[in-house]
């Protein structure tokens, strides 16, 4: 192979237009809450030696442009796996999307071939901000090169122009003296600054959907607040929909328009954030909120959800929450509840509300 060919092979040179400023910032009228993302009955299972782990087991939700949906739940409830599934990246080789549909701006993503996902979806239309800023950056490349990588990979610009755009992105996420800092390596940045670099990588190609997977859990509280402000501003500037995965109810409350509560691979309740916090409908949501300590209520014992989280390889029959549920009936043991609309905009999967 000649040197020129080799170079072309390493750097795909499809040139595409970057979204114009107008496309990025359409008129600031509220859009109807449809459209951007439609997830229907998504099921991602992990085929392990010990059995089938139904990590995501029938998840459905919608997300509009500029809207923020919080995905909350305990560890292992399937939050991260839902995010990875939207990217078409369930963990290999065990994970597979077995059923369901993910539509972004009307385009079906489930079943797209890998090269189309790489070229057109990941980083371009959907991007993810990962959990741990300390390990999410490649230690032996400059941050400038890393932010420029998606810009080059998606053909928005070539080498030096891409680096210039990377500096702009670092500027956008408020990395001070971005031009100089672009030449530095990740270990020369603090945790909060690294998370900003990760955010710059994610938004570099103006994705339509941004997934943030517990982006603040590794940060100090003061840095958390700064970073959440930043995410809100970026979302505003880029018009992206935001799926915010967290187990921190406080963070979710301050950032999200709506909140989906996950339990054992399913969304058990989805409601406007204010509604959910004021009047949770599902017994699990009630338990979750009751277990959060509140300011000004010293000395009170926190309520805990009784029992243990279910074994993900051997979920209880019927509603997976019934062994821990104070209201469980014979029906809960036998049959999984359907998801039904309840007053307002919410929906809940519980026999109490059918």
């Amino acid at each position: 192979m000649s040197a020129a060919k080799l170079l072309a092979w390493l750097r795909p040179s499809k040139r595409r237009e970057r979204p114009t400023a107008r496309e990025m910032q359409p008129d600031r009228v509220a859009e109807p809450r449809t459209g951007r993302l439609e997830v229907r009955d998504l099921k991602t299972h992990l085929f392990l030696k010990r059995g089938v782990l139904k990590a995501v087991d029938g998840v459905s939700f919608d997300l509009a442009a500029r809207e923020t949906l919080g995905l909350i739940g305990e560890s292992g409830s399937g939050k991260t796996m839902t995010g990875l599934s939207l990217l078409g990246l369930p963990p290999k080789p065990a994970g597979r999307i077995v059923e369901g549909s993910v539509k972004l701006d009307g385009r079906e993503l489930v079943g797209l071939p890998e090269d189309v996902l790489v070229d057109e979806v990941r980083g371009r239309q959907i991007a993810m901000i990962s959990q741990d800023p300390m390990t999410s950056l490649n230690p032996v490349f400059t941050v400038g090169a890393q932010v420029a990588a998606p810009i080059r990979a998606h053909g928005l610009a070539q080498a030096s122009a891409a680096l210039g755009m990377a500096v702009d992105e670092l500027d956008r996420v408020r990395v001070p003296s971005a031009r100089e800092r672009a030449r530095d390596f990740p270990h020369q940045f603090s945790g909060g600054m690294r998370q900003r670099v990760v955010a710059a990588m994610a938004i570099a190609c103006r994705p339509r959907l941004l997934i943030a997977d517990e982006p603040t859990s590794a940060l100090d509280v003061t840095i958390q607040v700064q970073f959440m402000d930043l995410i809100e501003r970026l979302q505003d500037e880029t018009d992206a929909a935001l799926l915010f995965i967290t187990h921190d109810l406080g963070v979710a409350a301050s950032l999200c328009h709506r909140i989906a509560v996950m339990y054992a691979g399913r969304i058990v309740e989805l409601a406007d954030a204010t509604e959910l916090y004021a009047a949770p409908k599902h017994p699990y949501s009630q338990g979750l909120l009751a277990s959060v300590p509140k300011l000004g209520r010293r000395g009170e014992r926190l309520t805990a959800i009784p029992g243990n989280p279910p074994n993900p390889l051997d979920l209880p029959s019927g509603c997976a929450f019934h062994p821990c549920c104070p209201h469980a009936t014979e029906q809960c043991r036998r049959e999984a509840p359907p998801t039904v609309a309840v007053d307002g905009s919410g929906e809940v999967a519980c026999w109490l509300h059918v």
Partner: protein
Amino acid sequence: MSGYIARRLLQGVVAIVGALLIVFVAQRLSGDPVALMLPMDATEEDFAAMRQALGLDRPLPAQFVVFIANAVQGDFGDSYQWQAPAMALLLERLPATLELALAGLVFALLLAVPLGVISAVHRGGVVDRVAKIFAMLGQAVPGFWIGLLLILFIAVELQWLPAFGRGGLANLVLPAIALGWYPVAAMTRTLRSSMLDILDSDYVRMERAIGLPERWIVWRFALRNAFVPLVTMIGVYFANMLGGAFVIEVVFAWPGVGRAVVDAVFARDFPVVQAGVVLAAVVFVVVNLIVDLSYGFIDPRIRHG
């Protein structure tokens, strides 16, 4: 970084002085050289005169100082066989050894890098399994035997390549394969395991999530990380090839340093042997220094740390 270099240089000097000390002591332990030099019927006065002429009548520390002073100037005495300065004889042959060791290293890397990377990417696949068998053979079969087989089949039976001597590129191929054979196995395994770790890391997950093509991720972003442990191995094996290539040099009649030292051992040509030992120590120190410096080049955390 400069403090780091200075420290490594100092350590190198200590290592070389250590090698010199061993050479010096070994020389004194191997018996009285004067007895070898003088005829059987020499008198006690002849012995004394010879010792004085050679400076062997002075106390050992004084002798060591003189030895070091000479060694620093590259003076290890004249070869008994060739009546020429021992170190100069070896330095003359150093380019041949360097050429062979470099060729061996290039051969090893050309094989080990693709094998290691592909084994990691397609874990449990055909390449991975073939590489595993290859690694076992590589570790179990000595280089000189591979050399003999290569001579027998490629040079004698098929007559594709010359069997011995130094000359063009064609002469280099077989000895380079024989010399590079052994490290391929270890390098492949090291690269495979570090690539497996790296491909499972958070930053590779992030690189996948932002849609970088898999070939960039593997061959550019991950491989550079995997080179850090590999460079350590390259240093060790390259130094070994330079210092320990004598077996291959003998098999292929390669006019290198190693063969000259082996010849000198058989001829009891002590100055050449001593110069050879010290030269090997210097080469080892220099190669390790280069390796240490290249870490900083590959991994910025070491450069700044």
